[in-house]
């Protein structure tokens, strides 16, 4: 490894050592400990606030973004080293948000300089919390079936319709949404990628209860919402589908990664806990667990291999659909086994296993169903014909 990179490693390691608040060190990442930022964010501790501001000052909330927007301007190699050092020193992620994962990349690729200047700094600083508005009730996997419409009222857009599966919409400051700006155009055209303030009059949200219990998902309703014309459309007018498609791949790799993350996390043995003697003697539970473990380890290696490919600049492309498909189906299987291994102990809501198990059933639906992933692999990767 080049000397400059090695210097960077030492440098960043020292910086972390000097700036990471001890009370944050080695704290497991969880709903409770994540820092999402935003207008109404309540820091869980002074340490969390300090860590965010120090990382932001050093450009580490968005390491690869340009420094002018509060990014770190790091290379892929440097970012990898940063990640390694953060992990090694047990440092939590200073900030997470859909702004970092999705809107930022979209703006960097499709946004105007004005839009970048207007939004990226607030994202890197954790001042504005964004949510994503793609899916609509009744559209399901058919994301391009956008019914939420924005009418051109001359000096503003008038937005009416509703979005579903908008995570944390009830906590977000702004939403990036797909809206139909041309109702005559064919389905995939006539859609624009629009930025809307959640505090605008007419925007309301309703949390969605899942079969597993409460969830961050919401329905978001737009009732005659006025959206200014200036700088609210990302990319070309009526070309929002291009932006969305670009981001979907991001999301897919994220969830794939999530799947991998999950699997890399606690082992199956941990999840199953100490087995009841009868369960321990059951060859079905035993073999299902063994087979799952075999597949999970091979999948974890595959996540590694695909990361290697990406880092080597070999495009993964549509094959990322495989990660999404395989990782999520694996996770469903895994928690079926956990439930069966824990037996009647897990049938009480008080035992967290049931809620986790039920929640995994959404893994193969959210962010593109397994069926859609298989279609993508068949058509795009294997190039099977459509007739």
């Amino acid at each position, binding site marked *: 490894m080049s000397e400059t990179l090695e210097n960077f490693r030492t440098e960043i390691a020292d910086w972390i050592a000097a700036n990471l608040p001890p009370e944050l060190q080695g704290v497991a990442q969880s709903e409770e400990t994540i820092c999402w930022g935003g207008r109404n964010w309540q820091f869980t501790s002074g340490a969390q606030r300090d860590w965010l501001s120090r990382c932001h000052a050093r450009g580490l909330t968005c390491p690869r973004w340009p420094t002018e927007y509060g990014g770190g301007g790091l290379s892929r190699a440097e970012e990898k080293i940063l990640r390694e050092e953060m992990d090694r020193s047990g440092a939590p992620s200073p900030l997470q948000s859909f702004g970092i994962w999705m809107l930022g990349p979209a703006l960097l690729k499709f946004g105007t300089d004005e839009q970048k200047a207007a939004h990226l700094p607030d994202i890197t600083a954790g001042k504005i919390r964004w949510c994503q508005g793609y*899916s609509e009730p009744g*559209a*399901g*996997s*058919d994301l391009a*079936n956008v019914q939420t419409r924005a009418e051109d009222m001359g000096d503003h857009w008038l937005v009416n319709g509703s979005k*579903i*599966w908008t995570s944390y919409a009830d906590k977000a400051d702004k939403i990036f949404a797909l809206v139909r700006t041309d109702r005559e155009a064919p389905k995939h055209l006539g859609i624009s990628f629009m930025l809307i303030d959640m505090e605008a009059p007419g925007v309301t949200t309703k949390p*969605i*209860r*899942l*079969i597993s*219990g409460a969830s961050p998902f919401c329905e978001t309703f737009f009732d005659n919402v006025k959206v200014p014309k200036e700088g609210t459309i990302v990319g070309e007018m009526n070309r929002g589908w291009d932006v969305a498609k670009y981001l979907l791949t991001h999301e897919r790799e994220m969830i794939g990664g999530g799947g991998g993350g999950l699997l890399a996390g606690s082992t199956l043995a941990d999840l199953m806990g100490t087995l*009841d*003697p*009868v*369960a321990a003697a*059951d*060859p*079905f*539970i035993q073999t299902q667990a063994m087979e799952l473990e075999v597949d999970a380890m091979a999948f974890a290696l595959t996540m590694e291999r695909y990361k290697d490919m990406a880092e080597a600049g070999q495009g993964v492309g549509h094959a990322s659909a495989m990660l999404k498909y395989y990782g999520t189906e694996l996770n*469903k299987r895994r928690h*079926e086994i956990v*439930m*069966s291994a*824990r*037996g*009647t*102990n*897990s*049938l*009480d*809501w*008080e035992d967290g296993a*049931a809620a986790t*198990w*039920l929640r995994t*059933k*959404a893994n*193969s*639906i*959210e962010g593109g*169903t*397994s*069926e859609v992933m*298989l279609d993508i692999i068949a058509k795009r990767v294997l190039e099977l014909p459509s007739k």
Partner: protein
Amino acid sequence: MEKLLDTEDEVMLRDAARGFLEENAPLSAFRANRDAVRSYDPALWSEMAQMGWAGVLLPEEAGGADMGHRAAGILSEEMGKTLVASPFIASAVIAATALRDAGSDHLADIAAGQALYALAIDESAKFSPKHSALQARGEGNAFRLSGRKCFVADGASANRILVLARTSGSAGETQGLTLFNLDADRAGLNREAANSIDARDFATLDFDNVEATGDDVIGDVDNGLAAITPALQAGQAALAAELTGLSSGIAAITLGYLKERKQFGRTIGSFQALQHRAAHLFSEIEVTASAIANAGRVLDAGGSSDLAVSLAKARATQTAKLAVMEGVQMHGGIGMTDEYDAGFFMKRARVGAEWLGDYGYHAAIIAAHRGL
């Protein structure tokens, strides 16, 4: 072998049951119970009792309808289709069978739907009656019960308790167990309702020196496993039937959805990949239905029925698991919402998979019969 088809009487019973339940216990009724944190609807149960369901396995002289196990399976299957929660399996099937075989004089109360029985067998995470360790210390003609039972069906709502306790030997031995029939307000008995994912009544029961007499014993002292086993088999067959009804129920809802839901400008039911999965699910349900009918017939014929019953429960468990997973997945996002009913089927299927013996428990019984 008896025909596996429903007889004319059975067809009539099925139609009558379906009609009654559609009218009085649709899925919305289950949701209402769930939202009201009510494990079942007593009013509905007394209506069922009046129709003879509570006495389906009891002789007419005890006020029963004496329709037999196949009939009980049909009722259970129909209840499964709309997730009807009731004391049927624990009281009308299991307790009724145990007490009938023992010539008990409580039969009329069961047939009337007034005696509600809790089934206190399990003591750990997996069903295995012979592993019961809850102690029943003999004192002259009396006994003192101390220990804990978990996952007790209808444990919080019942007014009577069937409890399997150890009067001699140690956990794992088939001998030395004794079956007691106690009223639920005995001193020293503490009942704590669980928060079960299927919104049914399962409870943990703590016995602290609870007194019982010889009159409370069902069957013979130290031979309680023999007293409860046929009753458990009857219950396993009925539960298997419920799970198969549950599978048909969610499959029907899912098929309906596949036929009406449009996506990418097509009815999703026209996608061949979904068609083949739906066809496979249909096949599994058909094959399981045969095992259900067979179990009822074999139980009604008397004689050894563990093979037939375990076959029914093993198949029903696997089929229900497939049906609910396909049901939720094929519905997509909406299937994941609590507003929609698919999740209820999934949760009940999971409970049904464990209750009265999971797949491995029953597969082992079958394997032993088949020289595997």
